[in-house]
């Protein structure tokens, strides 16, 4: 059983690495991914003891705890669905390449989910991050390339910040185990700095504003299944990182906590608003993710600040994460079908939309309740109001995604299958994972009301706005990134010309190779003369010196 912990990430990893050896790409990939996801679900459901592998890396330790079990389950489901969905892509051009990166990303993701030590976690995280680049740029279009570039820049930045934090932890206690993180932080002279670095490192993945800019670019650029896992589970890796590697519930870092809360809240609003002015459904969804992750950041910030109940927070975060992952994954999977006019899918997609909006009886209400129960008191209004912006955003999604033509195209078998799988689970899993208290609370009447009125308000606002503005304005995807990019690229170019002009020493003149050195004769015969004269000098000097 324990070995499954290793097998699960190792299987797609090895498959991915050896895919070049030949064999049928589709079959291999699907089998590998399927097996891995199956294992993930099994492990998540059954739980397991830890596994120590001293020989691997810096002493690897694998295992799961409550939170990671939940996320592992989510991962299993989403990756499984994505794998099924990917069949068409695998058959296409560059399918082999896609398969490799898909499997590697999967391996990284699963690996980090079961990692119990800092180095292994970092390994999984890095593997996932860099392999996901392959998914982002897969289409090879300029848009994808740009998205990939920005993704990579931010990813490297995140990695570096993270590594700095991790090294600080490691310097204290070597390759720290996740359980002992709090202990290590206590020994650190400046825990806030380390925590800050760790938080910032994962914040990139989490899309915390202003580090979110890659998300709205990467999601639309990536193939559908990739977007689904990206938003559904890969972002959550950042969350798990926070939970594993910040001293949550062990020591309070109030300043950092407050910063996270502030950024989270700001992001929740900001992303939602920017998202309202987007043209493409996947972009809108991406902004939605940013917005939602902002809320998760608020939760983690609260925990980090030392407020709230550990257990409640853990549950809240888990429920929120699973809920969001499934709903968002579902929507991403659905987008192409909706756009192609697959009506049943379109209509059924209202379910996750409503869930995201926190509509009663959906998983969304669970999440919203969880948020409310654990959030600091002063923030409840602000948090509630995020539902309004979320509602607006989702309306915008429906607006841009809803099929305009009557044309109907049948949904692909695998498309549909994967979508249905997630749909079914999305209806159940969050409720299953939630505690009884939470479930009860969510089913209260007041919660229901709280779930409905912001949506209604949003609808009203949207109606008014659409009336007021005949032409809906647009904002560039990735909002902040456009001006930044210009500066960055300009600066890069400038740097580069500077550097190139800085002549490399190998460019030394080679003209000596061309010809002979000038003919130089030995000193001619008058040498005797000069020699004799100089000799005289020596004689004189010596004689005088000795005398």
């Amino acid at each position, binding site marked *: 059983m324990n070995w499954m912990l290793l097998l699960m990430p190792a299987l797609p990893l090895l498959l991915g690495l050896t895919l070049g050896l030949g064999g049928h790409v589709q079959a291999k990939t699907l089998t590998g991914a399927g097996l891995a996801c199956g294992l993930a679900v099994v492990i998540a459901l059954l739980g397991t003891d830890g596994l120590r592998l001293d020989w691997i890396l810096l002493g690897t330790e694998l295992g799961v705890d409550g939170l990671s079990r939940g996320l592992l389950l989510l991962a299993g489901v989403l990756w499984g669905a994505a794998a099924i969905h990917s069949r068409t892509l695998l058959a296409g051009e560059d399918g082999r390449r896609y398969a490799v990166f898909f499997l590697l990303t999967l391996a990284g993701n699963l690996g980090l989910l079961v990692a119990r030590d800092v180095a292994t976690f970092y390994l999984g995280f890095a593997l996932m991050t860099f392999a996901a680049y392959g998914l982002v740029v897969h289409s090879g279009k300029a848009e994808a390339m740009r998205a990939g570039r920005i993704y990579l820049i931010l990813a490297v930045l995140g990695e570096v910040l993270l590594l700095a934090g991790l090294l600080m932890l490691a310097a204290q206690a070597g390759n720290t185990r996740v359980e002992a993180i709090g202990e290590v932080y206590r020994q650190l002279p400046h825990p806030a700095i380390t925590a800050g670095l760790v938080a910032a490192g994962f914040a990139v993945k989490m899309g915390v504003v202003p580090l979110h800019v890659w998300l709205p670019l990467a999601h639309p650029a990536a193939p559908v299944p990739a977007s689904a896992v990206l938003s559904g589970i890969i972002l959550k890796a950042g969350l798990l990182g926070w939970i594993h590697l910040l001293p949550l519930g062990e020591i309070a870092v109030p300043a950092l906590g407050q910063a996270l809360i502030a950024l989270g809240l700001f992001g929740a609003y900001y992303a939602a608003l920017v998202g309202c002015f987007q043209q493409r459904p996947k972009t809108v969804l991406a902004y939605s993710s940013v917005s939602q992750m902002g809320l998760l950041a608020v939760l983690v910030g609260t925990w980090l600040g030392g407020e709230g109940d550990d257990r409640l927070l853990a549950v809240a975060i888990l429920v929120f994460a699973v809920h969001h992952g499934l709903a968002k994954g579902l929507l991403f999977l659905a987008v192409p079908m909706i756009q192609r006019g697959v009506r049943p899918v379109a209509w059924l997609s209202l379910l996750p939309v409503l869930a995201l909006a926190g509509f009663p009886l959906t998983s969304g209400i669970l999440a919203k309740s969880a948020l409310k129960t654990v959030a600091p008191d002063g923030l409840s209004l602000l948090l509630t109001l995020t539902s309004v912006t979320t509602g607006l955003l989702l309306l915008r999604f429906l607006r841009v995604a809803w099929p305009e033509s009557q044309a109907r195209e049948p949904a692909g078998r695998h498309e549909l299958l994967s979508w249905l799988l997630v749909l079914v689970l999305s209806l159940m899993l969050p409720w299953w994972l939630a505690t009884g208290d939470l479930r009860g609370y969510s089913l209260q009447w007041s919660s229901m009301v709280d779930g409905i009125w912001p949506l209604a308000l949003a609808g009203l606002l949207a109606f008014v706005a659409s009336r007021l503005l005949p032409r809906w304005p647009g904002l560039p995807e990735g909002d902040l990134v456009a001006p930044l990019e210009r500066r960055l690229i300009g600066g890069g170019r400038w740097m580069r010309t500077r550097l190139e002009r800085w002549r490399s020493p190998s460019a030394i003149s080679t003209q000596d190779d061309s010809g002979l050195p000038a003919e130089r004769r030995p000193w001619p*015969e*008058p040498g*005797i*003369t000069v020699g*004799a*004269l100089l000799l*005289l000098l020596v004689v004189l000097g010596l004689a005088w010196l000795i005398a």
Partner: protein
Amino acid sequence: MMAGLDVYALAAAALIGLGFFGLIVQMHPLKRLLAVNVLGNGVFLALIVIARRLPGGPDPVPHAMVLTGIVIAVSATAFGLALVRRQARDEEGDDE
């Protein structure tokens, strides 16, 4: 200090100086050979001047040295003259 008044000592010194001077200012190899010989004679003279100071008669050791020196100088000069002839012949060959 007999040597103090010895005119031959002065001559020896002068010959050495002259030989040196000749070696420098003369370009022709024959002349240079002559110059070296003059210088050599200066040195030999100096030796004999020194030999003369021995109270019991002329010191035979410097005499023997000079005799050896003369033979060496002459044979070397003869060789040098052969070289001079060769050089002249080579240059002659050039002119033709």
